[in-house]
């Protein structure tokens, strides 16, 4: 200990302020949340140990099961839609004249916050919005209560999130496309392969490293989706559109079931770390 300090004291002094802040804010928080998850803490009485019952409730209570199901819908949709659209946009835009303008248009929503995006889409889904336009076009049969009827409300919010998140994936794919070697494409052209064929058998396989990264980022973010839902439906009506992150917030700060909220955070953590393991492995382990 003393020897370590003598040899590294100076270097340690530089690292310490950042490290101490992290320990104070986050490491201790993690420990406290783990502890709370085994208690019935409600903010008033002292926490009482309840074992695994908070965890068991997540897989038994209908409200939490709906929340789990919605989270899976979000994760699945986020894995397919923003990534797929991002890829499509980037391939269409590659080597296209006027690329810059289109790129900026698709990216613009990403420069706004999720809160703002939520407010915008509440406005669009209101009665004078999309429903009005549908009626005007004679498509009255397609008007819906976009945000108040489950499970449609979850899909409506996914539309908002796709609108926001596609642009950044497009940029990442464009970077990836720009870094690909030219030869395989020339070879494909000589062989007479058309655009679609070239895409499936040359572009897509060569892009797969970056596709994995983009999907990983999309996945990690979708588990924690909160802002859009809180702004658009607050998880309602009747807690029908909650995801785990929203359920955690409601349990903790509306109902003061801090123990239950903590257990949900832990499940969220385990799920997101487990599923994103392949992605994390790429970023951390490689360096160690």
């Amino acid at each position, binding site marked *: 200990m003393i020897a370590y300090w003598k040899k590294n004291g*100076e*270097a*340690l*002094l*530089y*690292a310490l302020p*950042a*490290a101490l802040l*992290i320990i*104070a*804010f*986050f490491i*201790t*928080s*993690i420990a406290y*949340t783990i502890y709370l998850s085994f208690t019935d803490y409600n903010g008033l009485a002292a926490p009482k140990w309840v074992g695994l019952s908070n965890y068991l409730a997540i897989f038994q209570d209908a409200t939490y099961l709906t929340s789990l199901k919605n989270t899976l819908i979000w994760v699945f949709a986020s894995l397919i839609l923003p990534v797929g659209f991002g890829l499509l*946009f980037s391939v*269409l835009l590659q080597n*296209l004249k006027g690329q810059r*303008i289109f790129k900026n*248009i*698709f990216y*613009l*929503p990403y*420069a*706004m*916050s*999720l*809160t*703002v995006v939520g*407010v*915008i*889409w*509440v*406005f*669009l889904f*209101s009665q*004078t*919005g999309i429903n*009005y336009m549908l009626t005007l076009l004679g498509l009255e049969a397609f008007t819906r209560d976009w945000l108040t009827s489950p499970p449609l409300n979850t899909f409506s919010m996914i539309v908002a999130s796709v*609108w926001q998140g596609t642009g950044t994936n497009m940029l990442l794919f464009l*970077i990836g496309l720009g870094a690909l070697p030219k030869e395989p494409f020339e070879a494909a052209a000589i062989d007479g392969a058309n*655009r679609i064929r070239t895409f499936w058998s040359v572009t897509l396989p060569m892009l797969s490293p970056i596709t994995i*990264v983009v999907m990983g980022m999309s996945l990690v973010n979708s588990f924690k989706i*909160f*802002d859009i839902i*809180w702004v658009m439906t607050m998880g309602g009506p009747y807690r029908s559109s909650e995801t*785990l*992150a929203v359920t*955690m917030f409601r349990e*903790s*700060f509306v109902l003061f079931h801090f123990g239950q909220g903590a257990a*949900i*955070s832990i499940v*969220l*953590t385990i799920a997101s*770390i487990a599923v994103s393991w392949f992605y994390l492995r790429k970023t*951390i382990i490689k*360096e*160690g």
Partner: protein
Amino acid sequence: MKRLGQWIIYIIIGLLAILWALPVILVLMNASKSLTDFSQGNIWAFPTTFQLGKNIMEAIRMGGLGSGLLSSFSYGVLGAGIAIILSAMAAFGIVILRLKGGFYWFLLIYSGTIFPFQMYLVPLFKGYQELGLYDTFVGMLLFYTAIAIPFCVFLLRNYMAALPYEIVEAAQLDGFRSFEIFIRIIGPYLLPPISVLFLFQFTWIWNDLVFGMTLTRSETIRPIMAGLATMQGIYFRSGVTTLLAGIVLTSLPTVLLFFALQRNFIKGMQHSVKS
């Protein structure tokens, strides 16, 4: 044949672009209407009045967005700034001064990005109440600084590891002390990644909703997005045009920042993807 293919692509991408731009256009159109103009028509009708400026002023005064803007701007600039300085120091200690076991120190700091934020909400809320930091400017600033550190350390550590170590050795031979090496030798190299980090972290802090909601209560401390979410609940029925003007106003800084510094943003992305 090739020509035709080009045209088809332009048509597809053009339609998609219109679809993508439409929500923003509708927001701008309706944020410019007077409330009577809005309530007589529908969101698709062109404005017959043009009063975006007046609506924005209304959002600042009535909606209480003014103090939120000021708070978030301070949190963003100071939080990102302090976090970058502390992170650069940490990365310097770990990489340049070769802190023994530095990789574990790095992992400790970086672990802050691995866990979902839900893990931190309740302990911070409780701890802040105990320590009297709840609903204070200092409390919010400390939190935003702390949350920005892991990613800054991650990027700066990669960046410093790629610098030629000879420059450090040369400086040591010349009798430079570590602090001088940090400021005068390494510092100038860090400007490009620092500008990227500042952009990312300022944007993150500006856009934060959940911690603002959890750790503050009063209008003067509350950051902008939490203020906007509160305003939405009140204004959606009675003052949509004001609310939409508020959206335009609160998005302006991050949108402008992005388009002004687009190159750096993309470079930053390349950097984080590569590593």
